[in-house]
Structure formats: structure tokens, C-alpha cells
């Protein structure tokens, strides 16, 4: 990563058409969510509150994709750096509470939130995309929850939100197998509302936002709150399970292993050695 890229803010908030606010993730290599991105997302939520737009668009300017999820290398280093187990668990719980607040704020934003997606949309990135009301994906977008290979479950609210939007069999398949799902298949189950050509997601999101602005804001707000309630109890239960799982030696070993991976399928468990 260049020094210029390191200095660049993890995201940028910009006013789009009248009543539209665009949040662009822009942290190389793929918008990993660590402490810097978390603080930036909190700032973006504050900016949304202050601007009170009618529609929010989430997108990424990073070529690799929308977001590769939690910054596992930072998480691993952070877990090694704090020796006291109680202090370590408190730090993780604090991060978890903060990222859940961010996700909940985006999820319950009164107007439509549109996610314009491409490339990698894994783990916490998938969870971020699931806060949106409507998702537009370039055809190369792939979704996955690879957390189980670390001995974890998704922890940023992804499972309750996926359960809200997807058939139960798909939720189990994504959770238990860690497989990735392409944009076209995601559209077949309405996880994605539009599939577009590479490079076209943001433009399509802007055209959709322009359409959404033609409808009555008050009715949109009441309608959204009615059809998209926050799955509060499930979100709390997911946090509890995540915290139960994370501070275990097996997870630390899996994180260390992940940090050392150089193969082409790091989101999967290591392949069994050839006989």
C-alpha cells in the first residue's frame, strides 16, 4: 500500500442529487473493518443524521470489491497484544457494540438505503450490505460468510439480517459451508434486486435513488418501518454467541493461520493434503 493510500480516509461522504447522500468506502485493499473503518462508519452515520437525506447510497471505490469484512489481521494482533482475558473480552465486546450500533443506524435510517456492490462482499462486508433496503450488484459480486472456518459465526448482525431477507436453507448453506454466492444466484433469491454489468452499480443506484425520490417521503418512511423491523432479539443473541466463541485458543490459531495464508482460497479451510 502506498503512503498516499494509507493517509486516505477509510470512507468519504458526499452529497449526490438533491436528497441523496453517498457513502463511499475507499480503504485498500478491500475496506476491511477495523478500528479506523469503524470510526469512519460512525462518522458517516453522524453525517447522515446531520444531513438528513431522503436516500443513502453505500458503495466502494476500491477495485477488489465492496468490503472483505472484519480486519482479521488487526483483530489477531489486538488479541495477542492484550494478555489479560477480561480486558481482551471487554475490548472485543466494545468493538462489537460499536459496530452493531453502526449497522443498526444504517438499517433503521428512515429512508431507503441502497447498496451498490461489486467484487468481494464477504463476512462483515456482507453484513454491511445486508443493512441496506435494496442491493444492486455487479455481476462479479460474490457474497460469503466465511466465519466458521475461524471457529466463529458472523458477529456484526449478519445472520439475523440474512434470516430476515433470505430463505432458511440458504442461510444454513452460507453459514455452514462457507461457500460463496454469485450475484445472479443472489438475485434469484432476492438478496439482490438488480444485477448489472461491471462498473455499472453506482450509476444504477443513482438512477434508482432518483426514482425513489419521486415517492412520498412520509409514506416511504412508514412503509419501511413496517416491512423491515430490526430483529432485536436475534441481534442480541448473535452478539452473545459471538462473544462466547471468540476468545478461544482455536480462534486465535485460526486467525494466525489466516494471516499466513497465501493460497487462492483463503476464505475456505485449508485443503486436505493430497494422499
Amino acid at each position, binding site marked *: 500500500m502506498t503512503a498516499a493510500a494509507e493517509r486516505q480516509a477509510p470512507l468519504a461522504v458526499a452529497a449526490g442529487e438533491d436528497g441523496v447522500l453517498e457513502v463511499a468506502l475507499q480503504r485498500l485493499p478491500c475496506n476491511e473493518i477495523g478500528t479506523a473503518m469503524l470510526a469512519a462508519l460512525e462518522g458517516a452515520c453522524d453525517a447522515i443524521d446531520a444531513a438528513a437525506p431522503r436516500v443513502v447510497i453505500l458503495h466502494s471505490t476500491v477495485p*477488489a*470489491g465492496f468490503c472483505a469484512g472484519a480486519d482479521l489481521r488487526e483483530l489477531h494482533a489486538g488479541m495477542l497484544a492484550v494478555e489479560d482475558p477480561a480486558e481482551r473480552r471487554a475490548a472485543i465486546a466494545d468493538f462489537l457494540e460499536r459496530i452493531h450500533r453502526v449497522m443498526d443506524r444504517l438499517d433503521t435510517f428512515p429512508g431507503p438505503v441502497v447498496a451498490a456492490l461489486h*467484487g*468481494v462482499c464477504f463476512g462483515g462486508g456482507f453484513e454491511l450490505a445486508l443493512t441496506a433496503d435494496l442491493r444492486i450488484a455487479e*455481476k*462479479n459480486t*460474490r457474497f*460469503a460468510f466465511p466465519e466458521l472456518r475461524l471457529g466463529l459465526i458472523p458477529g456484526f448482525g449478519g445472520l439475523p439480517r440474512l434470516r430476515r431477507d433470505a430463505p432458511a436453507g440458504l442461510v444454513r448453506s452460507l453459514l455452514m*459451508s*462457507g*461457500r*460463496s454466492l*454469485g*450475484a*445472479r*444466484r443472489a438475485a434469484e433469491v432476492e438478496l439482490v434486486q438488480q444485477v448489472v454489468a461491471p462498473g455499472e452499480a453506482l450509476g444504477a443506484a443513482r438512477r434508482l435513488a432518483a426514482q425513489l425520490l419521486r415517492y412520498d417521503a412520509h409514506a416511504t418512511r412508514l412503509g419501511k418501518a413496517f416491512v423491515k423491523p430490526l430483529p432485536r432479539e436475534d441481534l442480541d443473541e448473535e452478539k452473545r454467541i459471538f462473544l462466547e466463541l471468540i476468545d478461544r485458543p482455536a480462534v486465535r490459531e485460526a486467525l494466525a493461520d489466516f494471516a499466513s495464508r497465501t*493460497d*487462492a*482460497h*483463503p*476464505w*475456505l479451510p485449508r*485443503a486436505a493434503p*493430497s494422499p
Partner: protein
Amino acid sequence: MTTLERLQQLARTRFGEKADALGPDTDFFDALGIDSLQALDLLTDIEDAFGVEVPDWEMQDVRTLGGLAEVIGRYGG
């Protein structure tokens, strides 16, 4: 066109001229220097071209076009 020929065509489109030398038993991961993002793109290319859905782990050990053709065949492509 055989599955292998279609795969060679896909590889040419995605990776350019350096894919021309790929035979059915060439290790294309080594030959093309495929990283994790390209592995995902390859999976999407295959799903689009052959109308199949192949779980990621089926591709994890496959390093040749011949091996890919075999996997695609198992999924009805």
C-alpha cells in the same frame, strides 16, 4: 465446442495471451499467477458460461483446465 475449449476461451478472455499456452494438464494457477480475487472471478465466469453453480471447495484443489472441465461436467455443465 467442448468444455475444455470453452474453458480455454474463458481463460483467454480473462487472462489474455498468456492463457494461450495452457494445455489440459497445465497448472494454470502457477502459469497465470491467479490470486484469490481472480479465483472468485473465475468461479463467476464458469457459473455464467456453463449455467452451473459450483461450490467453492470443489475448485480448491483443481489446478488444470482438464480438472475444471471434469468438475463442471459433474454439475451438469
